[in-house]
């Protein structure tokens, strides 16, 4: 081609010296892996939407969201999903009240205050905590947290909020969910904080900032997108968690956020109903998928809101 014209010195070639077969194979493999991830996601959505659409042939969307009661297994079933949505909301609300400040606090402590040694111990510990199977947390809730709260109900703050609860109640579920997601929030937040350039921290200290000022004015604003990501990750885990809420919050579809009431969450319904004896093809069977699809939408909305928040508030360092 044009590259081998007469005036180029003999032996000079700028063409590829090998065909780089290995590299091409690796790129193809990476592409397939990425493609698989996308295809699987699409497959999940389709598998969920089809039976969910079936459900909405029996129950209209308006009915789904406006009916007051949730009694899918009774003779004359009613499908008011707001009850489940509220149940999830209540449990997640308490978990966030605990996990967001505690997780962020732990991250700030690890990043700004802890000595190198302490951090060397704490970080892996958190990562181990993240890996504990959730059924263990469910057991922890039922066997330890719930009885402890119940027995001491009158001697501490929630006692002011209402009657002594039964064995299953929102607060027990919320607290344990919160404890469960603290490591996620702390660990992901701290990763984001550790990525703040050293120069910014030095600038802040050099101007006479206290550690707390460095944390609140430089590190947290700079790490905001990572911190919000940690919140969303924690929140998504809490929303999607099944066994803890089923064991600790129960299966009564109450419309309540009072700490001492039992509630039924979306995930608890799905988990409990799909393991029970329900006939294939019934409206109740399809309702599992409708609730699943709603769960999907809720998680999506949480993610979208967080992206919008991050865009608005983050400080981008170079």
């Amino acid at each position: 081609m044009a590259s081998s014209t007469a005036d180029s010195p003999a032996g000079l070639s700028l063409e590829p010296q090998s065909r780089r077969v290995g590299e091409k194979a690796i790129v193809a493999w990476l592409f397939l892996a990425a493609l698989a991830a996308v295809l699987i996601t699409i497959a999940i959505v389709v598998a969920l939407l089809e039976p969910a659409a079936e459900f909405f042939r029996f129950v209209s969307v308006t009915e789904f969201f406006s009916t007051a009661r949730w009694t899918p297994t009774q003779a004359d079933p009613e499908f008011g999903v707001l009850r489940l949505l509220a149940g999830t909301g209540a449990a997640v609300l308490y978990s966030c009240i605990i996990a967001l400040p505690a997780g962020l606090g732990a991250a700030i402590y690890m990043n700004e205050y802890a000595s190198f040694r302490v951090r060397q111990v704490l970080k892996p510990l958190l990562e181990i905590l993240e890996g504990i199977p959730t059924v263990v947390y469910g057991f922890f809730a039922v066997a330890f947290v719930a009885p402890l709260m119940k027995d001491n109900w009158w001697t501490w703050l929630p006692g002011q909020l209402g009657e002594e609860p039964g064995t299953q109640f929102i607060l027990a579920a919320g607290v344990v969910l919160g404890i469960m997601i603290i490591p996620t929030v702390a660990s992901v937040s701290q990763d984001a904080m550790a990525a703040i350039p050293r120069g910014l921290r030095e600038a802040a200290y050099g101007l006479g900032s206290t550690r707390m000022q460095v944390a609140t004015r430089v590190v947290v604003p700079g790490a905001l997108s990572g911190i919000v990501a940690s919140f969303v990750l924690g929140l998504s885990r809490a929303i999607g968690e099944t066994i803890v809420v089923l064991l600790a919050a129960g299966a009564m579809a109450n419309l309540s956020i009072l700490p001492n009431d039992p509630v039924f969450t979306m995930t608890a319904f799905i988990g409990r109903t799909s393991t029970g004896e329900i006939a294939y093809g019934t409206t109740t069977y399809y309702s599992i998928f409708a609730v699943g699809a709603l769960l999907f939408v809720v998680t999506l909305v949480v993610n979208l809101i967080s992206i919008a928040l991050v865009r608005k508030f983050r400080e981008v360092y170079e």
Partner: protein
Amino acid sequence: MPDLTERHSPVPETHHTTRDDAMAALPRDPVFVTDKLNVYYGDFHAVTDVDLSFGKNEITALIGPSGCGKSTVLRCLNRMNDLIPTARVAGTVSYHGLDIYGERVDPIEVRRRIGMVFQKPNPFPKSIYDNVAYGPRVTGMKVENMDDLVESALTGAALWDEVKDKLKQNANGLSGGQQQRLCIARAIATMPDVVLMDEPCSALDPIATLKIEELMAELRNNYTIIIVTHNMQQAARVSDRTAFFSVQQKSETGDRTGALVEYDLTTKIFESPADRRTEDYISGRFG
């Protein structure tokens, strides 16, 4: 560089021929005096026995080959080394007669009086205004009018005219030289006594460098400036006194460590250095 003496030397010409000649090498009104300053990073003895004094309203340059401990010494002066877990400081650094490594000294109070400008411009990813206002805000300075303070700091750093119409814009949008002057504005907004500069021009182009050098000559009227530079011409152009450091072998163990070789008036260092090593270094014969 004879004009240097006229412009900057704090010692009147006449002293050069008097008995004070030997004394003139040391500042008469020191802001800092270090005594047997030693710094270790873990087991590594980074600088050994540095005795220096820094004069008020003077510019002192610390020069020497890379790794000889210039930054380390500079960072001792505002206790920035506290941020490095392995760093340990021995000896004393007295600031207006107070040992800043004394038991009851709060490093935050030290840093509020001794500002610092770093090698790489490091503005916060905030607005230009918020960058300058940062120091006064965190230190709880009593400020009657923050706008005025921001303006005067930016004017002091020779940046006001370039940014006065975009104070709310993010500082990351400025050029490297502007960012560095913003960092100087940010440092002087807290009205420090001393400004430490660690190779403030090494990331800048020659024109931006010239601007910063002119600015230093301005700032010298109100502040004591200590600057680390690996650029000998810069030291010769801007400073009143120069301390030359180099890396040496410790006599007992043979380990490498940074040490002060010679400290004198800048003119003396560059025109008639007393030490052979200084002469080799400034004439470029350093291996």
